[in-house]
């Protein structure tokens, strides 16, 4: 017979004793949202998203386990319930909403174009006929596609990781990479030969938490997000990761 086991390991299975562990999928190539702190030798995932996740799970009484993967693997991970939720600076789009559930937006950002210094690309228009890198499966891919259709075409080069994209720009293999401003800032600071310009983008690239469809966690998480915004916790983290972090980087 064909007995369907709908239960996954993360369901009620072992809630008897210790508190339940939630697995969070993320793509740790995205400082300051999420990346690895490797200097200690242990490889701790840190960043804005990680801190939010820690706070929320703590409030709700869960243990947190972070599982790193390429960005394009995150939604499949949720669909296959390999992860209980995902935080990866992920923007809730219509397409994605058909496949996963989203929390409220917790941070807004803008897209930028990262290029070599002095390349002089000030917007998508200037990129006609050039090659433009985006992260595979990210909203930037759609944005670039749309822009490409509007202005009459450039090559879109998808890569799995942001770090690869930046390396490609430095190598001159692609002319520009579409990256969020907060993230681009870090890369620019560390690569003096690069610069970025904010693009005139229509829809904002807000970040939200993603869940498997129908997950009961969505409501619980939204509630804590609300609290964080109210009690200043969110502002503290924004301060920590989008100001202090860059100051530190600049000092190094």
């Amino acid at each position: 017979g064909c007995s369907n086991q709908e239960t996954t390991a993360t369901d009620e299975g072992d809630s008897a004793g210790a508190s339940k562990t939630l697995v969070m999928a993320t793509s740790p190539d995205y400082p300051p949202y999420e990346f690895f702190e490797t200097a200690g030798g242990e490889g701790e995932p840190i960043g804005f998203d990680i801190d939010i996740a820690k706070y929320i799970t703590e409030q709700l009484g869960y243990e947190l386990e972070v599982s790193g993967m390429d960005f394009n693997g995150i939604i499949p991970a949720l669909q296959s319930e390999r992860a209980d939720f995902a935080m990866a600076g992920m923007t809730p789009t219509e397409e994605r909403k058909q496949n996963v559930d989203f929390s409220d937006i917790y941070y807004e950002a803008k897209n930028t174009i990262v290029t070599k210094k002095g390349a002089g690309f000030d917007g998508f228009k200037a990129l006609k006929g050039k090659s433009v890198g985006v992260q595979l499966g990210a909203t930037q891919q759609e944005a670039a596609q749309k822009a490409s259709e509007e202005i009459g075409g450039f090559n879109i080069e998808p890569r799995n990781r942001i770090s690869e994209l930046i390396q490609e720009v430095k190598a001159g293999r692609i002319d520009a990479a579409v990256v969020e401003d907060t993230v681009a800032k870090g890369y620019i600071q560390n690569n003096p030969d690069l610069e970025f310009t904010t693009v005139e983008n229509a829809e904002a690239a807000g970040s939200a938490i993603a869940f498997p469809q129908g997950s009961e966690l969505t409501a619980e998480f939204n509630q804590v997000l609300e609290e964080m915004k109210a009690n200043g916790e969110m502002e503290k983290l924004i301060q920590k990761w989008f100001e202090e972090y860059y100051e530190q980087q600049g000092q190094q």
Partner: protein
Amino acid sequence: MNLNFVRMIDLHSCLFAQLNLDFSRITPSIPYIFGGIWVTLQFTLLSAIFGFIWGTILSLLKISSIKPLYWFGMAYTSIFRGTPLLVTLSLIYFATPQLTGYNISGFQAGVITFSLNSGAYISEVIRAGILAVDKGQTEAAMSLGVSYKPMMLDVILPQAIKNILPALVNESIALLKDSALVSTIGATDLLRRAQIVGAEKYVYFEPLLIVAVVYYLMVMSLTLSANLLEQRLRKSS
């Protein structure tokens, strides 16, 4: 129809049911995926040809009596056999522009890496093929007063080819399979196209399954022709 068989079918449909396979969503993208067949084949072919040329040169270095050439050949082979292809591939992909200023594409970096890599393996194959020819053949030629070059060209190499050819086809099969690695540096081969379609349509498993089958069919047809070739060679001797 016996019971066991029925249960097997049952199990199968159960497996597939649990996977929730849904090919309909990616049907429009299938031509795009199949376009990767040509990329993969082209890639394999180019790498095999350059790898063979480079391997022949290397094998000559390695049976050479000039020490520096010999050592170069040995060190080269050792390095390529000692490093994961995925690592070499990334290194070459990212180092070439920095070193030469030339903006190598993923496809080109792939062909270069795979040629350099399979050159190392092919040189071993050729060297072994030459060494496998019965020493009596060399002695017979020498005792007739034949000198080194005609002995190699007329007596040894024609016999070595028979040992080498099947191994070369096997090396090509390995190349075909390894070619999937270029997906990691952005060449739009079969595997990469499956990933791209997966990311676009939020179905990950189905495109992978399709390319797995395509790879399998390609490898099998190469294997079959290798077997035929080997049989024919064995018959002719």
